[in-house]
């Protein structure tokens, strides 16, 4: 037992008297059981939203971008707001699976699988927006550096929009293989437990014939470590590049050097809020409270508080620099944000993102499940408004006062946004019923060091 020593001061990560077999049973239960009524209700609602959104997308593609609320002055609005919002949400999954792996944080093991699933599903939603905004998505392959029929005119590698193409596709595909590699041993567990031949076949196919040889595990751990090392700078680069879509332009309110770190912090902030929203429900519905404990919720709340405060600092720095720069246009852009016709959106953002996470300083509040759930929703709303404020308020006051306008979304804008939320939940709900939602192999490897029963046993016969 000596090799499994962990300081007694650390709270157990696996609650109750669990054995290796119990972990197998608990993780396999949601997959092997039947869906309950609530699952079907939420699934049907999400599916309806998704179908409505798909209809709106088809209408956009068939008729054109004119179906949106865009105008001559505000040429970018909900589409890119939603794009940045979804990419940002994705960031927490990689942070949990990669950065916390590099820091050897054992608490990540109960939540990394679902967080990564969330990443992949969120990036899928994000990817839809640039594609439908092309207007002619069947020309989508023009963003790839392939010689075209007009001669060898290439894509423009000076453009941050093209960097985005490379960043998002690298991010999505690398996240996917990272996730799948981790899933192999867990699919193998489901395969070896399956009683119905169809299930056995499907999980056999998905598990790629994983057998758990010592050499496979050695490579598995090395590959996970290297992928974590690659995914960490990758995730930072993705939102950095997303922020450059704005920062490299010359629009007051966009043209700021603080954007990359500010966007990355915001992304982690919103992503953790979404993980919190999903896992608070999942631990209850799937009976995983022994693995996703109150401590997990508390630690995520602390990250939300820290990143929320970083975002708050960035907002204030932006205001200060706008004033300090002495540039009239820049000063006006920020004054207009806080006091202009979109002030309600600005103060909504400030309240949700800077003020609300400060409650987490209180131990009592950050260990309250209901309160954490509420804050996680508030933060997601706030982060959507942040992107809306940055994009729309910077554009709606043009250099020419005669071009000043407001933006109001059409039903198509709203439909597409609601549709992606529906699509996201459809994917996540299907995942929750068919995938091992906890990385059970990894959790088993920390049972002896961080399981409540083993900790008690060890601390009982202390030297």
């Amino acid at each position, binding site marked *: 037992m000596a090799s499994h020593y962990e300081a007694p001061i650390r709270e157990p990560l696996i609650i109750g008297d669990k054995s290796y077999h119990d972990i197998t049973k608990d993780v396999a239960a949601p997959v092997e059981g039947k869906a309950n009524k609530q699952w079907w209700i939420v699934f049907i609602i999400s599916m309806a939203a998704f179908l409505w959104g798909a209809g709106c997308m088809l209408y956009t593609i068939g008729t054109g971008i004119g179906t949106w609320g865009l105008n001559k002055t505000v040429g970018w609005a909900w589409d890119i707001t939603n794009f940045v919002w979804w990419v940002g949400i994705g960031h927490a999954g990689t942070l949990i699976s990669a950065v916390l792996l590099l820091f050897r944080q054992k608490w990540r093991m109960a939540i990394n699988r679902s967080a990564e699933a969330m990443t992949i599903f969120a990036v899928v939603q994000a990817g839809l927006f640039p594609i439908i905004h092309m207007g002619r998505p069947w020309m989508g392959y023009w963003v790839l550096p392939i010689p075209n029929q007009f001669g060898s005119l290439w894509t423009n590698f000076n453009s941050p929009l093209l960097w985005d193409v490379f960043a998002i596709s690298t991010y999505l595909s690398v996240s996917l293989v990272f996730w799948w590699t981790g899933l192999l041993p867990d699919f193998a567990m489901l395969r*070896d437990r399956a009683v119905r031949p169809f299930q056995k076949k499907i999980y056999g*196919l998905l598990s790629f014939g994983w057998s758990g040889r010592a*050499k496979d*595990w050695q490579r598995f751990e090395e590959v996970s470590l290297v992928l974590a090392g690659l995914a960490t700078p*990758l995730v930072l680069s993705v939102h950095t590049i997303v922020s450059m879509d704005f920062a490299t332009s010359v629009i007051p309110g966009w043209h700021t050097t603080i954007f990359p770190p500010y966007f990355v912090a915001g992304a982690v902030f919103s992503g953790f809020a979404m993980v919190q929203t999903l896992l608070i429900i999942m631990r209850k519905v799937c009976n995983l409270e022994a693995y996703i404990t109150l401590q997990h919720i508390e630690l995520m709340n602390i990250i939300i508080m820290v990143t929320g405060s970083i975002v708050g600092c960035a907002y204030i720095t932006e205001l200060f620099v706008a004033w300090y720069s002495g540039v009239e246009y820049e000063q006006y852009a920020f004054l207009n944000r806080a006091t202009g016709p979109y002030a309600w959106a600005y103060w909504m953002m400030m309240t949700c993102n800077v003020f609300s996470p400060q409650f987490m300083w209180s131990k009592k509040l950050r260990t309250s499940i209901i309160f954490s759930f509420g804050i996680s929703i508030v933060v997601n709303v706030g982060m959507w408004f942040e992107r809306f404020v940055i994009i729309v308020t910077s554009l709606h006051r043009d250099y020419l006062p005669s071009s000043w306008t407001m933006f109001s979304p059409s039903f198509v804008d709203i439909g597409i946004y609601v549709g992606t939320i529906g699509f996201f939940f459809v994917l996540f709900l299907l995942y929750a019923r068919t995938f091992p939602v906890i990385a059970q192999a990894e959790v088993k490897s920390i049972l002896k060091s961080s399981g409540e029963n083993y900790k008690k046993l060890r601390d009982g016969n202390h030297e």
Partner: protein
Amino acid sequence: MSSKVVQALYNDDDVLMHAVKEVRAADHHIEEVFTPFPVHGLDKAMGLPHTRIAIAAFCYGLVGLAFATWMMNYMMIQNWPQDIGGKPSMSFWYNMPSFVPIMFELTVFCAAHLMVITFYMRSKLWPFKEAENPDPRTTDDMFLMEVSVKGNEDELTAFLQNTGAVEIKVTEKH
């Protein structure tokens, strides 16, 4: 000579680790060990050499970087230089700062994907591959050690029994 193996099942990782060390000390040959989760130090105890997959990943990353550099130089500088926002298109080095993001992305892309493909090939993992763990419980809570039989079979079984095995089976290895 027949290639018989003894399959010893253990129900605890610490007992298994101990057993692996004892079996090695007694000069028996461990064919394979199947475990439900990564048991730390097992590879070392079994005497497995280090994996070189991280070195391979580094090399793949260099390939990605070289490819990105070549591609952007060819497309933007050699083949069709364009004046885009006054950015210098006549020299790779002057234009290079704009190329850094994609150089980075392709480095990561190649390193990650080629490393994972290497891992899948080397460990023989792909769709429709049949699983090869001899007992389905080895993905749940059992640990299986295969020891090749050389000399007295009963003696070996008794020896393994003493190391804490909960089940022992002798089979023909194909």
